[in-house]
């Protein structure tokens, strides 16, 4: 059975969201974010497929549709887009009330940032020794192409969960080209696309 079929079967079976107020579930989730932190290559966007897998397939916090929504919100909100982890944490606990939702958001964000931050402190303080190390050169050159492949995979995934008809795909492709060819702020693209949604020009 392929992984895709396994995922589909798992989703077809009753997908029960775990309760984070049970501390064992909470610890499992914290551990998942902590261990992903050091794999956030290329500024963290490489992790989006993993976030989707966790939130939609593994823990059933969100539907794919909600995942597409919170990705858009994290992109539109001020600050680094990797703060989407806070929204994932929030979605995981929102059924247990706003206080749990806020706590869970903060815990998720701290978990994803803590390991990479500690490593960054070490890197900042020892950069003069690392700078000319062959490990640094090999890491930079070797992981770059892998990051590239993963980013394409992430782009395709977000495209698939966001767009379901021809006008929607057309808007996405136009935005993609404009992102690459112009310096227009992405907020404009989101505002225009949002208006198109409100007017019923693009639908889910």
């Amino acid at each position: 059975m392929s992984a895709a079929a396994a995922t589909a079967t798992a989703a077809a079976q009753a997908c029960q969201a775990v309760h984070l107020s049970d501390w064992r579930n909470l610890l499992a989730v914290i551990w998942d974010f902590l261990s992903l932190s050091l794999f956030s290559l290329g500024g963290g966007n490489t992790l989006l497929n993993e976030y989707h897998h966790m939130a939609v397939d593994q823990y059933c916090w969100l539907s794919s549709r909600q995942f597409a929504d919170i990705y858009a919100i994290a992109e539109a909100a001020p600050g680094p887009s990797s703060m989407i982890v806070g929204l994932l944490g929030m979605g995981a606990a929102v059924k247990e009330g706003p206080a749990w939702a806020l706590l869970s958001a903060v815990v998720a964000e701290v978990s994803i940032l803590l390991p990479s931050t500690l490593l960054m402190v070490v890197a900042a303080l020892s950069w003069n020794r690392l700078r000319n190390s062959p490990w640094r050169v090999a890491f930079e050159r070797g992981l770059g192409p892998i990051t590239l492949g993963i980013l394409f995979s992430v782009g395709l995934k977000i495209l698939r969960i966001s767009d379901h008809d021809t006008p929607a795909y057309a808007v996405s492709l136009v935005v993609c080209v404009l992102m690459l060819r112009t310096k227009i702020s992405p907020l404009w693209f989101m505002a225009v696309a949002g208006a198109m949604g409100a007017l019923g020009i693009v639908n889910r």
Partner: protein
Amino acid sequence: MTTSAAPSRLQLFLGMQQVALSSFGGGLSAWSERIVVEDRHWMSKEEFITGLTVARLFPGPNQINMAVYIGSRFHGLSGALVALLGILLLPFSVLLVLGLSYYYLHETLAVDRVLAGVITASAGMALSMGFKIAGAYTRDPVALLLAGVSFIAMSVFHVRLVPLVLVAGPLAMAWYWPRGERR
């Protein structure tokens, strides 16, 4: 350009908060340079660029890594945490409010319709991420092969990121290991 005395932890916190505030609407990296290098003279431009290199190289969101770099240069771990708090506090609070509004209102028809449009734009933005860095690799067939294999492994065979990086990473590093004049 001369750099002034090292900032205190409070100055770091406030400076990073100003970076976060100024960049509401985008351009975090540019604002960071303007405030840290040009306005406050905490670092020279060269030091700042070195910091950006390190921030991009290591795991973690680039702008957050940059704040950590700046903070830790002056006050080690405590400086890093203060800078991190400074750059995250306001944007994260805004995000929490947006998030709560979303989770409690997303079934409202109007909100859902607008979001149905917005996600088409964010999907286009997500798609552009790969193309944005692809230009650096087009002349290196091995790099294109690595990228292609990683893409297929993840998109077709649903390989998870951690095993993918743990297997492909060392192989790629061995291939690109600097060997004098060979490459």
